């Protein structure tokens, strides 16, 4: 049991930052990103015994995180995701205005993308190898390259569009 605890802590320490960044890119909100991060690692803990080393452990964790983000439920207590993201980003812009307007703008642009595209571009921005992203998102590498190209274009357009306002 102690060995499992130790392994979990090592996994958490080496992956939590990237997973948090992924969740943050998806939601644009630190609290929601923290919730998603915790939900992801809860599942990692629950399923650690079932991990069979068929892929890299980071790929496995990313896959859990991506699917946790995609299945992040809308409930009466939780506002609709798109609405939530927009509202939070709007507020964040004011918060960031002096400190780092460009970063806030980037999150706003990411929030304008489709949910799955948000996750893919976040992994691209974090420089994950394409074959790993393909493995995580369940898309063939060929299709993924086309998709990434399209998302990059869209994000760049959005960024230029908002930056010039």
């Amino acid at each position, binding site marked *: 049991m102690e060995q499992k605890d130790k392994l979990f802590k090592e996994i958490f320490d080496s992956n*939590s930052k990237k997973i948090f960044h992924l969740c943050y890119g998806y939601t644009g909100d*630190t609290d929601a990103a923290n919730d998603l991060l915790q939900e992801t690692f*809860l599942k990692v803990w629950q399923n650690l015994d079932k991990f069979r080393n068929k892929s890299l452990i980071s790929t496995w964790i990313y*896959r859990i995180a991506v*699917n946790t983000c995609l*299945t992040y439920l809308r409930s009466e207590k939780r506002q609709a995701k798109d609405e939530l993201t927009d509202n939070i980003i709007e507020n964040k812009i004011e918060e960031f205005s002096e400190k780092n307007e460009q*970063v806030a703008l980037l999150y706003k642009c990411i929030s304008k993308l489709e949910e*799955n595209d948000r996750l893919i571009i976040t992994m691209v*921005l974090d420089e994950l190898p394409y074959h790993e992203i393909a493995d995580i998102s369940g898309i063939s590498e060929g299709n993924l390259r086309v998709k990434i190209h399209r998302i990059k274009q869209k994000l*760049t357009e959005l960024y230029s569009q908002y930056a010039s306002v």
Partner: protein
Amino acid sequence: MQAFDQIQELWQKHEVEVKVSADEMLQQAKKEVNGLKLKSALNILGMLASFIAIAALWIFFHFESWTTHVGIVIFLVAILSSTIVLYRDHRLISKSDFTVHPKDFINSLKTYQLNRYSLYNGMYWLYTTALSLGFIFTFIEILPNLSYIQRIFAVGITIVWMLFCSTILRKAVMSREKERIALLIEKFERISGQISTPE
């Protein structure tokens, strides 16, 4: 893609802060997993305790009428079947995690939700009818031994209980189940739309 490189640089420069430490996460994970298991286990234990209590009543008390024996057997079968269903659900919930195996989840979700819905509807009526029948059979022997007031009280409580189960309780449980299924459908649509759609 020079503009994108600038965006990437901006992204990578932006430091994020993880609010939770590995130790806290480990503690929380253990607590939540144990809490979930405990709740589910207590539910099953509660049903088993009812089963044992009624079985003990049957073994240690002397009942003369065959109707009482039939009534008690109906109670026991109803409770045992519900416990088995609870146990199967418990195993299903603890075994499958759709975020770890999304493809399996997508394939089984529609079947699962239909099964759950029909099973739940069927089980509900079966359970209520069985318990009501059990009461009727046991009352045949028990009621003559009670005073007039006690008889009215026992029959009254049973009728109120049956009405409560078939109206307020049933509606509440059905609406909870309906909401749960709606959430599952939403999950299914969101996942299948975003992961499985061919490019």
